[in-house]
């Protein structure tokens, strides 16, 4: 008999969580990475407290994008290499559900911490305080979106075939709209303008992605295992 959705989801969450926590260093790493790279920008651009705030939204969001890019990269890789993926495909559990669970847990250990700590980083870049709510909201929606899109790419590229490069060519540009809307939302808020419309757009994209992406992910995993 096929297992209940909830039990599978909770099991997947627990498993991924364990994998993340097994080494305490790793769970902190997205944050540290964020903090470290944020520091690079003043060093590269100059410490000028006048211009820095103007850049803050773009910088924050580009680094967030990069963090989730790096995190998404190896998302299914180890599962593919040690054969767990085959077992997942063979199990009666619905692949749609499990992939959604994978993405969720991935977001919980990368996107969520970023969202929560983003105000700190924003203050280091002297982003005006009034922009913080918009920043956090955009992070909340945006990182989830990035996780979903990123894992499509990860699923399709996991079986290291020539196709790999093509896919990342296709996937990476999908990050563009996220970056545009999210960053501009923050910039608007920093200038005291209403940022609602961009956030609504992000929310809409997220809703669509949550519904549609798992299909793409599942398909990608099937193809990868079959080709392997």
């Amino acid at each position, binding site marked *: 008999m096929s297992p209940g959705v909830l039990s599978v989801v909770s099991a997947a969450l627990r498993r991924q969580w364990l994998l993340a926590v097994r*080494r305490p*260093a790793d769970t902190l790493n997205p944050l540290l990475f964020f*903090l*470290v790279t944020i520091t690079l920008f*003043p*060093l590269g651009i100059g*410490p*000028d407290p*006048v211009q820095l705030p103007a850049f803050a939204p773009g910088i924050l969001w580009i680094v967030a994008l990069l963090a989730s890019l790096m995190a998404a990269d190896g998302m299914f890789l180890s599962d593919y290499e040690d054969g767990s993926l085959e077992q997942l495909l063979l199990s009666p559990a619905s692949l749609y559900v499990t992939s959604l669970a994978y993405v969720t847990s991935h977001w919980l250990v990368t996107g969520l911490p970023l969202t929560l700590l983003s105000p700190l980083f924003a*203050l280091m870049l002297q982003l005006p305080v009034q922009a913080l709510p918009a920043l956090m909201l955009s992070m909340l929606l945006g990182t989830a979106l990035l996780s979903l899109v990123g894992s499509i790419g990860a699923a399709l590229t996991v079986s290291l075939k020539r196709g790999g490069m093509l896919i990342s060519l296709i996937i990476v540009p999908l990050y563009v709209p996220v970056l545009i809307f999210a960053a501009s939302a923050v910039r608007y808020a920093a200038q005291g303008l209403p940022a609602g419309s961009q956030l609504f757009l992000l929310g809409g994209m997220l809703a669509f992605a949550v519904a549609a992406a798992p299909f793409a992910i599942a398909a990608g995993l099937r193809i990868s295992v079959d080709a392997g």
Partner: protein
Amino acid sequence: MWTFFHKLGSPPWMYRISGRILAVLLPLTLAMLVAGAIWGLLYTPPDFRQGNSFRIIYFHVPAAVVALAGYYVMAIAGAISLIWRMKMAEVAMKCAAPVGAAMTFLGLVSGAIWGKPTWGTYWVWDARLTSMLILFFLYLGVIALYQAYENKEAAAKACAVLSLVGTVNIPIIYKSVDWWYSLHQPATIKFTEESTMHSSMLQPLLLMIVAYYCLFGCALLLNMRSELLQRGSGTQWVRALVVGDRGTGGETRVL
């Protein structure tokens, strides 16, 4: 000479000696801290420009100075552990990292708190602040690397290599950051120069700096003792320690 090295290598001896040292050093440190704090906070005239907020200097500067020194302590210990394969040096290095990181953090936080009244903002990308932040990252890197290895023997080796690489780089980093800052004409911020610091302000500061050095030493030794106990758990000297005579047994529980 070599016999001394040998002794240094042996956990029980180290444990005993460190116990004796601490018995003296710990009270001394506390006394100096209290004295320095009282002297600095109560018996020095307020700064003509910053008023009373400047008194944070008595916690900020010592922390900042010791933080840097701490990294070299760690790196030298690492070098010794690599070259002479000395376990005790490994322990020292492993235990110096969190203490140094804590000092750095103290410097950062106290500085940030200081920044609010002085610069109107918690953080500015000033050369010294930035290099302090980077130093903090260097510490975190060592700690995280040690955590990430299951096999602590390997972890110690890896951290030793890393801290050595870091040592080579620290001067370069500091110089480059200073240069970077002077490159963009420093914005409105101005540090209160040491020269303008009145001697009545300076003396307690020096006392505090000495106190912080001692504090670093104490924290390091305490850390090492607990590490020694953990590593030696099961060996007879630890059992003798805990079961044998209650005196040190109690002490171990306290420390």
